[in-house]
């Protein structure tokens, strides 16, 4: 105990510098030693530590590999969890859609049953689609030589009339396919235009953007519950990329992005044919109608093939009527 206290007292005071002096002198001497003389010593020390360094390096590499494996494992587990959640969501959504589909089917069935109960038969007139190819300039020239280009002549359509080539659409079907003027030409559910001239074998389509094009349209706003039908108006082609919609009163709600649906009496409304979307809406002071511009859904280019929407009588109704006439 006495020894310990003496040691403490000595350290609490100044430490003897004498033992440090030779250390400093030795270090100064070592500093002046040429590197060539110290290299063997360094080599020996390096060899002494080499096994330990190799072992430590091996341990470090293994630890790194283990850490990377753990990270990858965690990442894979997280991805699996995400995918599992996504699958669960999709299954739930699928069930909801199946339920909605079943409800809709049941509703349709009940409506049909109700119609069947109230009316003697199915609808008398049905919309039907007839496919037709769009003729290009070469095909038109060929048909002209054969005197088969039987539509569009009144509108000045000639094979060399380049003015019409870009804007006029000529179809390879006409009255032979029971086409008639004002039938709508569709690409999918997008309206390309209307038939303006129908010949025996060909017909001419006036595109939505062409000047003089007019049709009755109805606006519709997409919502969570589906489409909400809005105001009706008159679509007019102006020879520009955008069409005008007129006669929509400013009291009606209209917004950019609203769908423009066909609302004429060609059966297109029940078919759900789309003209395009509202691209611009303006209202100037004193206006009673919106100034609406529509971007056509069919675009500017003519499609290679269109479907012409035409109304046809229901053969079942005709047959039933004939049976009723024939029976006593």
């Amino acid at each position, binding site marked *: 105990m006495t020894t*310990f206290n003496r*040691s*403490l007292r*000595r*350290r*609490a005071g*100044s*430490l*003897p*510098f004498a*033992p*440090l002096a030779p*250390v*400093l002198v*030795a*270090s*100064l*001497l*070592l*500093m002046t*030693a040429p*590197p060539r003389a*110290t290299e063997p*010593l*360094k080599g020996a*020390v*390096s060899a002494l*530590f080499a096994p*330990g*360094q190799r*072992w*430590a*390096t091996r341990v*470090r590499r293994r630890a*790194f590999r283990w850490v990377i494996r753990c990270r990858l494992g965690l990442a894979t587990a997280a991805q699996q969890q995400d995918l599992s959640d996504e699958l669960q969501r999709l299954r739930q959504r699928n069930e909801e859609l199946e339920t909605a589909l079943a409800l809709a089917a049941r509703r349709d069935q009940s409506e049909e049953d109700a119609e069947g109960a109230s009316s003697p038969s199915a609808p008398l007139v049905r919309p039907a689609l007839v496919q037709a190819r769009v003729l290009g300039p070469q095909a038109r020239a060929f048909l002209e030589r054969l005197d088969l280009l039987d539509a569009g002549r009144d509108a000045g359509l000639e094979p060399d009339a380049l003015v019409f080539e870009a804007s006029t659409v000529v179809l390879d079907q006409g009255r032979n396919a029971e086409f008639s003027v004002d039938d709508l030409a569709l690409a999918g559910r997008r309206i390309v235009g209307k038939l303006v001239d129908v010949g025996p074998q060909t017909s001419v389509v006036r595109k939505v953007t062409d000047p003089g094009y007019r049709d009755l349209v109805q606006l519709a706003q997409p919502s969570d519950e589906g489409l909400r039908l809005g105001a009706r108006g008159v679509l007019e082609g102006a020879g520009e990329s955008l069409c005008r919609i007129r006669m929509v009163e400013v009291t009606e709600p209209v917004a950019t992005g609203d769908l423009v649906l066909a609302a004429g009496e060609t059966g297109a409304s029940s078919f759900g044919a789309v003209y395009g979307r509202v691209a611009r809406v303006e209202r100037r002071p004193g206006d009673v109608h919106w100034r609406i511009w529509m971007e056509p859904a069919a675009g500017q280019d003519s499609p290679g093939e269109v479907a012409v929407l035409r109304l046809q009588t229901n053969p079942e109704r005709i047959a039933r009527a004939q049976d009723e006439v024939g029976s006593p």
Partner: protein
Amino acid sequence: MLSYGLLICGAYLSVVLDTALAPAWTIGSAAPDLLALTALSWTAVSRRSRAYLAAAALGLLADLNATGRLGVGMACFALVAYLLASAQPQLGRLPVWLKAAALAPAIAAQTLAIGLMRKVLGEIDLGIATMAVRCLAVGGYTAAVSLPLLMVCEWVRKPRWS
């Protein structure tokens, strides 16, 4: 004798880990100087009055494992350990975390002294400001590493019986 055995083992382990694990635990340009930590920790916790001589020996070991002239580390380790040993009675009364904090400037000073001497000898070509910042980072990092070691030392040395 046992404590010297521990010191030798600690020094060996420090050199090995300093060289083998430097790429793994370097943050920016700072890595802990485990050999300096061993030397100064030994000086700080040792009750021997000439513990700084062991620190000088570890400094020589550092020189032998470094490129450049011998003696630089030896002299710096010895001087810093001598100053730390002078303050050892006050240091001994501090809690562990303050002891670790006190090691930070000591290690930073020692590393800076070595760097400056090697700069004077023309062995390294770094600006003094850069060197100082790096030395401070090394000091802080090493002090942080020293905390668990000092806690173990404290736990071993603390009498657990009456």
